[in-house]
């Protein structure tokens, strides 16, 4: 059965992930950008990950930019990538559906390693998401499959290693990758 993941665990994992991204960049380029923060969260607030967003308010190492739409968040991620800044997009499944053209046009066609953390709001604890009675839960993985976006489920604290793994995968494949947050974070 899936379990809720503590916000602090997700944030610590993101910090480690961004540190690794900066170390990778520092090894690759002549003059890596110097900032006091580690990376960015681009958020269109997600009910499922609200405890993470609340805790990020007190986390100076990660800058949070609230975006009006997921389209914007994806395009902003491309701009940050161009400038060498690590980021993660924290959105909801419905927001993924709303921004499919930008996923295609920017992240896939532009070969931008956009890393998505997608909350599966209304996912039933006892059901596989693909068998959910809610279309917004049920269609998420098939949609990502259709667009060839690799994805993994975060079904509990033991799965947080998927965050750096899929962040790295996005960078290596030069394209989007996603983790799906199964239950509300705590």
């Amino acid at each position, binding site marked *: 059965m899936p379990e809720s993941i503590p916000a602090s665990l997700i944030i610590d994992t993101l910090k480690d992930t961004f540190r690794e991204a900066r170390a990778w*960049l520092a*090894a*690759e*380029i*002549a*003059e*890596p*950008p110097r900032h006091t923060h580690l990376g*960015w969260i681009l958020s269109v607030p997600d009910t499922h990950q609200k405890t993470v967003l609340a805790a990020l308010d007190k986390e100076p190492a990660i800058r949070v*930019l*609230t*975006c*009006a*739409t997921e*389209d*914007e*968040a*994806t*395009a*902003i*991620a*491309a*701009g*940050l*990538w*161009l*400038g*060498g*800044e690590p980021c993660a997009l924290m959105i909801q499944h419905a927001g993924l559906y709303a921004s499919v*053209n*930008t996923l*295609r*046009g*920017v992240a896939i*066609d*532009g*070969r*931008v390693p956009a890393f998505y953390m997608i909350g599966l709001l209304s996912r039933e604890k006892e059901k596989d998401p693909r068998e959910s009675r809610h279309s917004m839960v049920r269609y998420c993985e098939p949609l990502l499959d259709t667009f060839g976006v690799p994805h993994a489920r975060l079904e509990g604290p033991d799965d947080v290693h998927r965050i750096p793994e899929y962040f790295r995968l996005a960078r290596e494949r*030069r394209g989007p990758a996603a983790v799906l947050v199964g239950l509300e974070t705590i």
Partner: protein
Amino acid sequence: MLKPEDVLRAIAAARGDAVCVPTMTTAPAWRTLAPDDLSVTCVGFMGGASALGLGLALARPDRRVIVLDGDGSLLMQLGSVATIAGAQPRNLTHLLFKNGVYHTSGAQDIPGGLTVDFVLMAKGAGYRNAYAIKEPTEFKRRLPTMLTEEGPVLVELHTGLAEKTPMTDRGGLPFHRQIEALRTKLLRPRAS
């Protein structure tokens, strides 16, 4: 009324090392005026230039970022005006080429046509500055300021139709190659 090509020519001459983000009808002319420069063109993702420019501006606060936007394009992601205002990038100049139509798809009127006031929208959202320019002499006089003043600044440029559109003048590097080229120029990989 401003001629888009004249405006772009003047920007190309004055931009220095600014990164430029053209979209739709500014793209073909910009490709000719600044063929191998710090630019990335947004075509096909429905108004994303302003947001992509914001990401660049946040990542590279040491450089000016100039978005060469269109009124129809901005309407497709109008929320980005609030997102930009919220982020307050001091190095972002948002130039809006206002012609009142979706030129690329056949010059159909945008909703509201020329009555839509983007200056008011930008000011209402919280841009540091926003103003409209309609005459070439005023544009030339104010250009140096709009490329250096503290942003975010939006300038509504009242223009006629461009000579070319992405439909009449296809070409240029594919988007992913533009991304790779600009990233390489901005980040300068270590010599191997």
